[in-house]
């Protein structure tokens, strides 16, 4: 059973369509990246999955339960793109509040583990109002992980983090994958998605315009061969590179460098969203 199963999902805000028939599956222990320009419908999809927004048509299920139902909400952790925790609460108090609401029996040990996971072990008693934006975001991730639900929905979880913080989150996501926790990661940071995600989907105007494993989405973008007679450029991939090198050597040319170029996720993304 997929952790998240979305079928023919549609959402309209008045006359404006936000999602126009989206199908997405996130498997158990899978890191799934959701990409797309602003207004593509990414946040709406995540909000429907966690029950904050009602779909106009179609369905979304969390571990087999209808999105928004109590069993579905018990099975997920969510970090909103824009969120705020009460400034008077310490990191430990925020987590305790969410433990009680989520029905987690993890107690102090779980809270300590969560703070350790997000690199905030030292800030257990620090009040939210005294935290930097990055610390609050890491606390947000820890809050989403309360009770270690089978599915984590993260909406731009690294937008306020510095490079070291992003690396902490990447390591954390890989660890979660190891624990069998599924993650739907909504991010603008393509390099990050490319580094950690098993599969990605690119949304545009409320539709999935590309989906798959990042490597599979990448296409050959030609071959560049540096010889003693200058640089030769040709279309094709590895096979074309091998044939061209053989022909050049047979023709007496010296080959110094061969570069088989493949599109990056960024190029795939820009092609898919038409920019």
């Amino acid at each position, binding site marked *: 059973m997929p952790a998240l199963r979305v079928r023919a999902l549609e959402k309209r805000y008045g006359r404006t369509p936000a999602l126009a028939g989206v199908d997405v599956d996130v498997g158990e222990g899978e890191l799934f990246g959701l990409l797309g320009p602003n207004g593509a419908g990414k946040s709406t999809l995540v*909000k429907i999955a966690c029950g*904050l927004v*009602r779909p106009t048509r179609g369905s979304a299920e969390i571990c087999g339960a209808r999105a928004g139902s109590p*069993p579905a909400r018990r099975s*997920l952790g969510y970090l*909103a793109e824009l969120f705020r925790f009460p400034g*008077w609460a310490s990191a430990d108090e925020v987590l305790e509040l969410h433990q009680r*609401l*989520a029905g987690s029996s993890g107690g102090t040990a779980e809270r300590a583990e969560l703070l350790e996971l997000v690199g905030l072990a030292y800030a257990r008693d620090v009040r939210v109002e005294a935290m930097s934006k990055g610390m609050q975001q890491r606390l947000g991730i820890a809050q989403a992980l309360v009770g270690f639900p089978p599915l984590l929905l993260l909406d731009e979880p690294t937008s306020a983090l510095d490079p070291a913080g992003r690396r902490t989150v990447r390591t954390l996501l890989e660890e979660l994958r190891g624990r069998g926790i599924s993650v739907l990661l909504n991010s603008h940071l393509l390099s990050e998605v490319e580094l950690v995600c098993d599969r990605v989907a690119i949304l545009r105007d409320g539709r999935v315009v590309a989906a798959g494993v990042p490597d599979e989405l990448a296409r050959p973008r030609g071959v560049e061969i540096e010889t003693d007679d200058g640089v030769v450029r040709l279309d094709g991939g590895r096979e074309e590179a091998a044939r061209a090198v053989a022909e050049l050597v047979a023709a007496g040319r010296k080959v110094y460098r061969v570069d088989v170029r493949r599109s990056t996720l960024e190029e795939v993304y820009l092609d898919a969203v038409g920019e």
Partner: protein
Amino acid sequence: MNAVVVIAGYGLREALRRRVFAVVVVLTIGFLFLYWLGTHYLFDHLGEVTPPPGEIDSRTLVGATVLGLGMFATLFLGVVLAIFLTLGVVRGDAESGLLQPLVVRPVGRGTVLVARLAGAASVCVPYVVLVYGAAVVITRVNGDWTPDRIVTPGLELTFGVVIVAALSLLGSVFLTTTANGIAVFMLFGAGLVAGLLGQIGDALNSHTLERIATVTAWVVPFEALYQDALHGITVNTSGFTRVALSLGPFGGAHVGGPYLGLWAAAYLALAVGLAILAFTKTDL
């Protein structure tokens, strides 16, 4: 039940941080001091009250009028507290990002609203009882006057404040914090104005004004409860004293009748039910 307690506590601590209680405590101390001062001098100069003693019971006239004023102030302060505790529960907290992490938990949106109302009521009810009780004690100590009924008017005031809290909660589903605050205060003000109109209508024997006041009081039953509470403090008073009281702004011309409590309870349930229904259908 655990979730209700957790969320109610959370809401109260958030209010504490916003200094709502500090503002109300300062206002209350100021009011009770002025009330003590006012009653002290009013009863001290009882002989100078017109019309002169003999024709009416001036102690009752002064006591009921000044306690009526105290009840108005109690209601007003309780309403301020209730509104500030509830005006941003849905839209306000959603816009600031406080609500979403709570709502995605498996507690249910209805539970969130009921918990926030329970949290507000757990502060407002003791507060109104305390301030009203203090006003009664001060009146007794300074003027040797006790209202005909003590408990029922106090309960009606607290009920009125809880109804305003429920209306504010309902408004918070549709309106931003500022707009909701303005709307609920205007509604409260409109209810009071209608009550005064009814009082004037009663004094002038204008049935139209009285009917307007009656309809309004039932549309916003906190006003009907307040009027009934005012009536209750002099329920056994009659004759010229009754007439003199009805000419003033705190005469309690409107009598709620036996169905007021039932209607107020149904109204409260309706407001909370509508708030839950609307909140359930709201995209966050």
